[in-house]
């Protein structure tokens, strides 16, 4: 083959490309030189062939340009054979309305290939992309797709970053989530796939690999407390979205900051990496004292930090020698001579070598100078704990002795010099003068604090997506507030109206009331002689056997221990008139709940009452009517009297929230009664089944928390869905007019 830079050869290739875009002329020679070194002869031929196709495709010069520049690199990563698969994908995209996405696709392909280096993995990625394209390109009429996918181009741009933190499976889950939930919102879809929406980040966080700090906060808190006898808030900082710089762990007055996720590295698990970082920071807390930084140059500070880090670690290892394994595995081991002092500033490299040697003395010192400093360091520590000030003076003389002219060079050698479990040592420095570039220079915030908002901040609850069998994290915002009050006398009127019913209920209640006295038999000491047992013992005695001395009995009290939460569906449909009655369903519910509350009060069981309705997932309202510790008094009656119905029924989040407080009740049995008149639904959900499945999932979660959920449905046609949600635990009340009578009876039957 002729030399690639040979003009004749280039001419041939250019002719083979048969493409007249002027923009290509500028880079063609360079690209071909690159390609001819990376591709085989056959590969080069195919390469030009496909480039030619891209030129003729009619989508401008951009795809060809990018292809010419990127393909040789991709081919070296995944092999030339994948070209066919890539071209198939491009042709598919080209035939769809998404041809604008070809450029970003090709642009990011090299970065993607670097993370998916086998043809098989790359094929999965291509399939996933095409699936995304098919599912999100929409059409208005007929079968032909006519509108481009809003999220596809954004997806190609974020793909390399995503693959940094996600496995291929995780990426597929993330994409599927986006396709499913944002198929009909072009704007939101774009935000999702460009990683701008909170939801998208939350799902990413869930799918990512590695050890999440949030999952292990308690274990790490305990470690800090157990090993270091200190406690502090552990605050995660995001590592995924900060692409500019990688933050380091640090601590300040507000807590210890750690990355939100650690992957296992160098045989050290994510949890152990957190422990190493914590141990290092705790050692600083215990043994470091802040010194004034103003008189030190940046290089001097770097050296002081290096010695001080080594000192606190040496002290920590005295106490806990087992940490050595973690520190040694995580500390970089820079190679002597890796940095060339002629071209780079080698200060960081030299200090990293020193730091490594201070931690693990190498078997053989390449340079006697290094050994001398390691010995001086250990000599200082042999006498005791040494101090930050001693380390500072040691560091200064180290710097004086080893300084090189090239340390001033602008190119700093960074490879193998970052010790990622160490903090940034900001606690080590005090300043006489505040540095100019410090953001603290902002005048203190003098805006008056905002007025107290009368509502609580929202609580976020997940929602179950049955189609993908996953939880949508933090999907629903639930606001808990006090129900407005009305006139308590209204409820008394209702109760008076049902006084005959109340009398009948009272008889039932008396039967249910705690049967206080329970006989304890077989007592050695007791209040009475248990005659049966006494006689038996006497017979034993007469017959020469050992008599049972437990011939007494005594009494003890036995109480009920049932905590109940009653959840009222307050959706719009309650305003309808009940079948076969003069009143609305709401009024009947009001009477029923009043009677129930009165009855439960008689029994003395703790009861909470709350109403709920929702107006999309962003506004689920949980209206507090009665708390567990509130007695049945005028305040509660007033709230009941003012009951209003509006909006829709989003049941899952409400169930989860009700469980939140019910599960904290100190009772043997926990009962959650749901009084509803229809199936779960909300105006932002098109799929009827979705909220039903979510409620079913919520009931299952409550079961695991030991809460018995029971539904009282007023919807005569409820059988279709209510058993899906609640299994066998439901009652449908057909004759709503009898609800006031049925509800307390039902409660008693359940808790008998």
């Amino acid at each position, binding site marked *: 083959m002729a030399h690639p830079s040979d003009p004749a050869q280039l001419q041939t290739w250019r002719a083979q490309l048969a493409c007249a875009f002027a923009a290509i002329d500028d880079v063609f020679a360079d690209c071909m030189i690159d390609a001819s070194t990376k591709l085989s002869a056959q590969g080069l031929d195919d390469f030009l062939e496909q480039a030619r196709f891209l030129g003729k495709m009619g989508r401008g010069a951009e795809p060809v340009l990018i292809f010419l520049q990127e393909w040789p690199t991709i081919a070296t990563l995944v092999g030339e054979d994948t070209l066919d698969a890539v071209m198939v994908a491009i042709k598919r995209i080209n035939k769809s309305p998404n041809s604008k996405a070809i450029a970003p696709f090709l642009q990011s392909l090299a970065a993607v290939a670097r993370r998916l280096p086998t043809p098989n993995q790359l094929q999965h990625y291509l399939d996933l992309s095409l699936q995304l394209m098919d599912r999100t390109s929409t059409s208005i009429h007929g079968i032909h797709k006519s509108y481009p996918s809003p999220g596809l181009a954004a997806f190609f741009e974020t793909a390399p970053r995503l693959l940094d933190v996600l496995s291929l499976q995780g990426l597929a889950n993330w994409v599927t989530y986006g396709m499913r939930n944002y198929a009909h919102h072009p704007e939101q879809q774009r935000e999702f796939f460009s990683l701008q929406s909170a939801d998208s980040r939350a799902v990413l966080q869930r799918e990512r690999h590695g050890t999440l700090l949030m999952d292990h906060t308690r274990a790490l808190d305990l*470690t800090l407390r157990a090993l270091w006898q200190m406690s502090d808030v552990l605050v995660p900082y995001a590592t995924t979205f900060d692409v500019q710089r990688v933050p380091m762990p640090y601590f300040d007055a507000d807590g210890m900051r750690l990355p939100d996720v650690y992957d296992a590295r160098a045989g050290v698990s994510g949890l152990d990496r957190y422990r190493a970082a914590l141990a290092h920071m705790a050692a600083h807390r215990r043994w470091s004292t802040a010194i004034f930084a103003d008189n030190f140059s940046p290089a001097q500070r770097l050296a002081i930090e290096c010695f001080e880090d080594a000192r606190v670690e040496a002290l920590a290892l005295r106490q*806990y020698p087992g940490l050595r*394994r973690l520190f040694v595995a995580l500390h970089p081991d820079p190679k002597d001579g890796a940095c060339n002092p002629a071209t780079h500033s080698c200060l960081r490299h030299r200090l990293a070598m020193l730091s490594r040697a201070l931690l693990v003395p190498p078997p053989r010192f390449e340079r006697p100078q290094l050994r001398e400093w390691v010995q001086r360091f250990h000599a200082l520590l042999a006498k005791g704990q040494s101090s930050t000030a001693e380390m500072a003076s040691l560091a200064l003389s180290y710097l004086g002795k080893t300084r090189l002219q090239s340390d001033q060079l602008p190119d700093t050698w960074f490879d193998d010099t970052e010790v990622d479990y160490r903090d940034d040592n900001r606690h080590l420095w005090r300043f006489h003068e505040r540095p100019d570039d410090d953001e603290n220079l902002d005048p203190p915030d003098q805006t008056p604090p905002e007025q107290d908002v009368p509502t609580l901040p929202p609580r976020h609850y997940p929602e179950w997506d049955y189609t993908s069998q996953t939880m949508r994290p933090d999907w629903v915002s639930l606001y808990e507030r006090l129900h407005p009050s009305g006139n308590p006398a209204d409820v008394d009127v209702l109760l008076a109206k049902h006084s005959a019913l109340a009398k009948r209920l009272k008889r039932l209640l008396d039967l249910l009331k705690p049967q206080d006295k329970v006989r304890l038999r077989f007592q050695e000491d007791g209040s009475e002689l248990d005659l049966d047992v006494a006689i038996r013992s006497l017979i034993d005695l007469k017959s020469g056997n050992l008599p049972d001395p437990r011939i007494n009995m005594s009494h003890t009290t036995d109480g009920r221990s049932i905590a109940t939460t009653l959840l009222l569906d307050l959706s719009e449909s309650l305003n309808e008139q009940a079948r076969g009655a003069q009143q609305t369903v709401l009024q009947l519910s009001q009477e029923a709940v009043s009677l129930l509350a009165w009855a439960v009060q008689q029994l003395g069981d703790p009861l909470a009452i709350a109403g709920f309705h929702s107006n999309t997932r962003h506004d689920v309202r949980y209206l507090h009517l009665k708390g567990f510790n509130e007695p049945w008094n005028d305040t509660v009656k007033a709230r009941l009297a003012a009951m209003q119905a509006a909006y829709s029924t989003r049941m899952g989040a409400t169930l989860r929230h009700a469980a939140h407080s019910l599960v904290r009740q100190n009772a043997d049995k926990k009962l959650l009664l749901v009084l509803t008149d229809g199936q779960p639904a909300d105006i932002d959900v098109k799929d009827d089944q979705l909220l039903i499945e979510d409620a079913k999932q919520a009931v299952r979660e409550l079961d695991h928390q030991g809460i018995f959920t029971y539904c009282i449905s007023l919807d005569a046609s409820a059988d279709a869905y209510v058993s899906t949600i609640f299994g066998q635990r439901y009652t449908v009340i057909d004759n709503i007019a009898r609800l006031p009578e049925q509800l307390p009876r039902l409660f008693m039957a359940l808790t008998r």
Partner: protein
Amino acid sequence: MSDKAETYRITKEPFYQQQSNEVALYEAAYNAKLPVMVKGPTGCGKSRFVEYMAYKLSKPLITVACNEDMTASDLVGRYLLEANGTRWLDGPLATAARIGAICYLDEIVEARQDTTVVIHPLTDHRRQLPLDKKGELIQAHPDFQLVISYNPGYQSLMKDLKQSTKQRFVGFEFDYPAADLEASIIATETGVNLADAVRLVKVGAAARALKGHGLDEGISTRLLVYAATLIKAEVDPMDACRMALVRPITDDADIRITLDHAIDAVFGDA
């Protein structure tokens, strides 16, 4: 009577390492015939201390482990039915009062409050024990002394001593010994080398720091001694610690991995 006293006598000196001046104080209390209460977390050496003092004063020691089902007659005594009538049997408290022994009621809060009241007449100036069923009044032997132990860590609403009981005793408060002292205790008790004992004490300190954060009690000196015994028997130290120090005290996964890590940190590289 004297041969009965011999069965309760402690013949071999128990190892006890004095923490401060508690031995002298106890001797003073004994000479004044004052009832003694020993408080402290579980496994910190309360029972060993009482045993040691009984040996040192060469008095018999009658120990009763209290439990919830214990009745007053378990302490005082009861009639036994026999084929041709009944026979009285002295309980441990009555025996101790007759022979002049130190009666040690271990974990007294475990017994029901109505049971504990029977010790009242023995613990004030009267020093007598009425046996109401038998119609006898035992005048306590001059050597008799009552000692109770009691772990304030258990204190709950249900399990506490009545004020009227508490105010009949002089008290000793025990805690886990200081680190170097505890290490030497472990080394002496088990024969394990001092370096391992020091490490064990570090693990113990780590667990004690978690008290109230998921652990009801820290690792006791007794458990540390068990671990040391295993190490002495050539069990791998990390295994010994996991077995003797971690598994018994917690079922909480977070606590377990934390303590396991503490063991790795302390014994790693050893």
